[in-house]
């Protein structure tokens, strides 16, 4: 099966050297992502992790002053070349500031908006919107004005809008920034559902909450200064993170295991994993 996301020698430059949203440059990135993967993308601010996410949706370079070189193909389409509507059929994005994504007067209209623009039949729009709102725990909120929702509810609405599109590639950049721990885990559960459902998508989640990602991601990408310096299982990438002191702080389980074990290349990334790891050694 061909990869859903293909990126080759991707370079992104900001003409002023920087982006006011804190997205950094990319200095030559090559990777592929397939259906069924839940990819966690980590890196310090400006490392390029958010820039990668923005390249998949086409926000970079279409809505910015950035220059892009190299190959980006999302379900065979180049987001820089293909129109917004055609990209919307294959990729959906959730950002960290849900209020900035809201355009409609009611929650139901908001979820229906993308599907209406692609000309889906009314019955299908209604069915998908109801399903998406149920999945994020917002049934009963259909008639509310999105701007009167709490930050956490707005974030779940943004996620409902994305999953209603049934995208081939689901991109989330800091989707849990407004959420408490149970709600944050529910978001990762939705990402996993998208990746492992009957028609599996590729789910890509950029997050500074490494502890959260560690328990869910099937694969972790670590960015540092515009380069992809780690690509593998969370246990391997985060072990390297903890040992080399690069990237964001590793989960406490990984950090502690690295201190206790000077050698291992694979370290636990969750509390549960740490307890088992310790039992093997004691």
């Amino acid at each position, binding site marked *: 099966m061909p990869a859903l996301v293909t990126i080759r020698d991707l370079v992104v430059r900001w003409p002023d050297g*920087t982006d*006011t*949203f*804190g997205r950094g440059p990319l200095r030559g990135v090559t990777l592929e992502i397939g259906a069924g993967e839940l990819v966690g993308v980590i*890196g*310090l*601010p400006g490392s390029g992790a958010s820039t990668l996410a923005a390249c998949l949706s086409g926000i970079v370079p279409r809505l910015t002053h950035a220059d892009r070189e190299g190959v980006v193909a999302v379900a065979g389409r180049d987001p820089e070349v293909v129109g917004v509507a055609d990209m919307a059929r294959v990729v959906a994005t959730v950002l*960290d*500031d849900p209020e900035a994504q809201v355009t409609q007067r009611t929650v139901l209209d908001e979820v229906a908006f993308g599907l209406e623009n692609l000309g889906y039949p009314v019955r299908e729009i209604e069915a998908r919107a109801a399903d998406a709102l149920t999945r994020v725990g917002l049934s009963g909120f259909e008639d509310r004005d999105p701007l009167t929702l*709490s*930050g956490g509810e707005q974030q779940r609405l943004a996620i409902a809008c994305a999953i209603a599109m049934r995208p081939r590639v689901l991109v989330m950049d*800091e989707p*849990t*920034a*407004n959420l*408490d*721990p*149970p709600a944050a885990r529910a978001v990762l559960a939705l990402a996993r559902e998208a990746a492992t459902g009957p028609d599996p998508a590729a789910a890509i989640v950029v*997050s*500074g*909450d490494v*502890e959260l990602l560690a328990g869910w991601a099937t694969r972790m990408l670590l960015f540092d200064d515009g380069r992809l310096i780690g690509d593998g299982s969370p246990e391997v990438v985060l072990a390297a993170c903890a040992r080399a002191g690069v990237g*964001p702080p590793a*989960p*406490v*389980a990984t*950090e*502690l295991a690295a*201190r*206790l074990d000077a050698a291992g290349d694979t370290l636990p990334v969750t*509390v*549960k994993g*740490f*307890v088992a790891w*310790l039992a093997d*050694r*004691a």
Partner: protein
Amino acid sequence: MARGPRVIGPAGDVAEGPTLAMRDVSLRYAGAASTAIEDVSLVAQPGQVIAVVGRSGSGKSTLARLVTGQLRPTRGVIHVCGLDTTAVTPTVVAGRAGLVFQNPDHQLFARSVADELRLGPQHAGVSGPETDDRVREAASALQLEDVLGAHPAMLSMGLRKRVAVAAVLTMRPRLLVIDEPTTGRDAREAGWVADVVRTFAASGGTVVVVSHDLALVANTANLVLVLAAGRVTASESPGVILADEALLAAAGLEPPPLVRLALALDLGTGGTAPLTIDEVERALRARLGWRPQP
């Protein structure tokens, strides 16, 4: 953050006596069926960091507004630096107690970050050169030098939050109150919040931080207040609060990963959770009979 913030704290001599003293404070919003805050008493000294935790709607944000003079109690007395907040205007209190709102968009008005930082001192009648000094200092502390000319609306949520904190610091308050500093923002940047809180307290200020981020609480607070339905249900050190899973669950909170790990391995001692990874490492090495870290 690559480099730490410069020391930035209250101006002038450190006041004698507590920065904040609340006695039997209650507040009922007009038309509300129940009180939002009920019989809260609290004394906070210079250098102290007090965390306030609890469910949404437990009264945390109301408390933040009370101690910064934006709300007046229905009953009880609040003194900030010895000043009775009910006896003066909110502007007078604002010179001593600064509030950073949960949503920075509720406090950013100017067309550039620099103008935003100047706004407070200008309104307070601070001289031009002194205002410029304060703006430079606050911008440096929050690492905003590169975006001083930018429109706040063009910045990421995390940067807007930093602008809001810097704008409050330009008023040189003695009491810094931050409402949910680590929500709605890029968690990768969260390290600066703990830096600012610790630095402000270390330079003689007092911080009240309203948060459900218990990792931040563990990293910064000397005292944790748990609020439920407007009442203080616990007032203890972070180690004691974080070890009490039943208390946390009742407040809608979960222990941070380090504490969960320590509790899963039964490393808590005498009902106190270890708050640093060094403590957990030492306890584990001792238990396993492994050599201490050289």
